């Protein structure tokens, strides 16, 4: 009983590819998300830094205003120039705007202690106006040392508060920078971790893939070996030109369940076989070898196509052990001297004979093999000079056009009639046309065997009686 090893399933390869793609997509998402997060963190940090810089600028302006106010007051006390007074009033009006800007930013940044210092600053500034500047401006000539002391005290209060606000803004700026750096680092570390994880997964997947590839390579080598062993082949027969072609449905597997064989049984007799095993792939290919050599063996014992099919039909189910497998087969024995063809067909109706431009279909003489045990009729056909036997498997008649219509036997006969007389070219062309009809996506293998006969000019010397022949073959021997 033939037992074949289980090979890796294509679905596993598909799952592996899908997983690898998913991991790659996930890694890309992580990378892009990380980049976006970094960009966001930098953006937030930049905005905050801008705010802090604006606050620092406002504080500097407030200090400048304070200094200008003092200078204008002193200048007015000394010179009594009204323009100094105008300048003093002009700069004093700007203080509140800067103070409001600074207060808003401090509030947004959550610097409540700096806000408290700002209040002190404002209060000292207001006191300086009311208790120092205004009395000096009202009575410049009576400016006394006590006012100067008070002014000194209030200026020191403002400076102390401003210094504190500046320190808090500086610290906040450093915190923002540090936080941003931390955030960027965290994002970077996370991305690194993810990338390491993905890398490890990729390495694992690559190992798995390598093992799978190795298994596939083993399968390919096995298939090639089987292909060499089980290849359909033909040997030259006297007075015959033989052509054959094989079209595989799967490009990567050039061996399938279709088989043909031309074997020389004797000087004048040739065995012609074509068969189609149900099923595909290596399983079917193994069976083709079984068919080829079994048929040869039976044919060597008795050259009766009906007997050959009957014997094979008995052996097939017992050997294969699979009740669902069946074989359609055409077996012919050609007398190359008389061009007499005895044939039996087990459900194989894709057998034709071309005479000039006329093509006839050879009749089926029994059921497919592997289904029931029945005798097979033998039919005899006398070929003429230039006639051609064209045998094919159902991949030819079942070639679909773009609408899904089969070629059928009638279409095949038409194609055969249209082709030239060279059997090799005819076989190749039939495969090409079948492939073109199905838009290069053939669903089934196709095997074509074409044998053109030529009447011999003179019969070779008689060498005795053929043994193990049928009645027809005996008749041939008598010729």
């Amino acid at each position, binding site marked *: 009983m033939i037992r074949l090893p289980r090979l890796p399933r294509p679905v596993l390869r598909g799952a592996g590819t899908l997983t690898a793609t998913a991991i790659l997509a996930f890694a890309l998402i992580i990378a892009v998300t990380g980049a976006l997060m970094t960009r966001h963190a930098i953006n937030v940090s930049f905005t905050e830094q801008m705010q802090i810089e604006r606050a620092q600028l406002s504080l500097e302006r407030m*200090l400048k205003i*304070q*200094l200008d106010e*003092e200078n204008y007051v002193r200048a007015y006390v000394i010179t009594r120039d009204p323009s100094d007074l105008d300048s003093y009033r002009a700069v004093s009006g700007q203080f509140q705007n800067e103070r409001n800007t600074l207060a808003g930013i401090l509030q947004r940044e959550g610097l409540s202690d700096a806000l408290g*210092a700002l209040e*002190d600053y404002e*209060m*000292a500034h207001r*006191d300086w106006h009311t208790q120092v500047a205004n009395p000096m401006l009202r009575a410049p000539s009576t400016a006394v*040392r*006590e006012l*100067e*002391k*008070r*002014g*000194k*005290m*209030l*200026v*020191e*209060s403002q*400076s*102390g*508060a*401003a*210094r*504190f606000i500046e320190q808090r803004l500086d610290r906040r700026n450093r915190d923002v920078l540090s936080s941003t750096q931390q955030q960027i680092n965290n994002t970077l570390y996370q991305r690194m971790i993810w990338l390491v994880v993905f890398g490890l997964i990729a390495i694992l997947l690559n190992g798995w893939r390598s093992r799978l590839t190795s298994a596939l390579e083993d399968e390919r080598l096995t298939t090639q070996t089987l292909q060499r062993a089980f290849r359909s082949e033909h040997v030259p027969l006297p007075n015959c030109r033989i052509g054959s072609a094989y079209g595989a449905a799967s490009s990567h597997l050039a061996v399938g369940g279709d088989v043909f064989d031309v074997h020389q049984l004797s000087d004048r007799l040739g065995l012609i076989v074509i068969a189609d095993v149900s099923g595909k792939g290596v399983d079917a290919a193994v069976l083709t070898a079984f068919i080829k050599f079994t048929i040869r063996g039976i044919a060597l014992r008795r050259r009766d196509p009906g007997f050959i099919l009957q014997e094979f039909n008995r052996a097939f189910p017992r050997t294969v052990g699979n009740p669902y497998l069946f074989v359609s087969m055409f077996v012919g024995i050609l007398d190359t001297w008389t061009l007499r063809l005895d044939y039996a067909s087990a459900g194989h109706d894709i057998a034709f004979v071309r005479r000039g431009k006329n093509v006839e279909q050879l009749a089926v003489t029994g059921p497919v093999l592997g289904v029931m045990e029945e005798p097979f009729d033998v039919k005899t056909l006398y070929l003429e000079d230039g006639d051609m036997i064209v045998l094919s498997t159902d991949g030819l008649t079942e070639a679909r056009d773009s609408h899904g219509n089969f070629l059928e036997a009638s279409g095949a006969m038409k194609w055969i009639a249209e082709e030239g007389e060279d059997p090799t070219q005819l076989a190749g062309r039939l495969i090409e046309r079948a492939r073109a009809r199905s838009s290069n996506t053939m669903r089934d293998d196709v095997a074509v065997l074409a044998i053109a006969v030529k009447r011999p000019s003179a019969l070779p010397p008689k060498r005795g009686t053929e043994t193990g022949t049928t009645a027809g073959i005996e008749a041939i021997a008598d010729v």
Partner: protein
Amino acid sequence: MYKHALLTLVLLAGIVTAASAAQQQPCHAQRGMHVTLFGGVDDPDVLVWDSRNRLVNYGAGSTDTRRFLLPHAMLTRPGTRAVVESCVAGIVHQKFSMDADDAVGVLIVTGKFRGRYGWVSSSDLRGKGIPEAREPW
């Protein structure tokens, strides 16, 4: 047993004392040093206080406290020269500041208040061996 405990306590006390002494920074202004009084760029006048406590209270006090203390201060012009009489390190804490200045007792040797003694913050002193005051404040 008790001897060991006592010894341990003594050792611990010694370590703590040594550590605190090591942490305390010495005064930059040394007795006899000649210095110049200078407040700052924006207001270089210097307040010289009649007592060390008022100097300390002024530094850390509110505006009202300061106003209350103000009559006890002399406002000296920038550039007034003085001689250091004493120094207490790190006791003048300014409001809104973590830093502390030294309280320096000086004898004023030039200007309107020549011959008067008083206390100033070390940030208002300039002289050889005394670090520059904070700028621009």
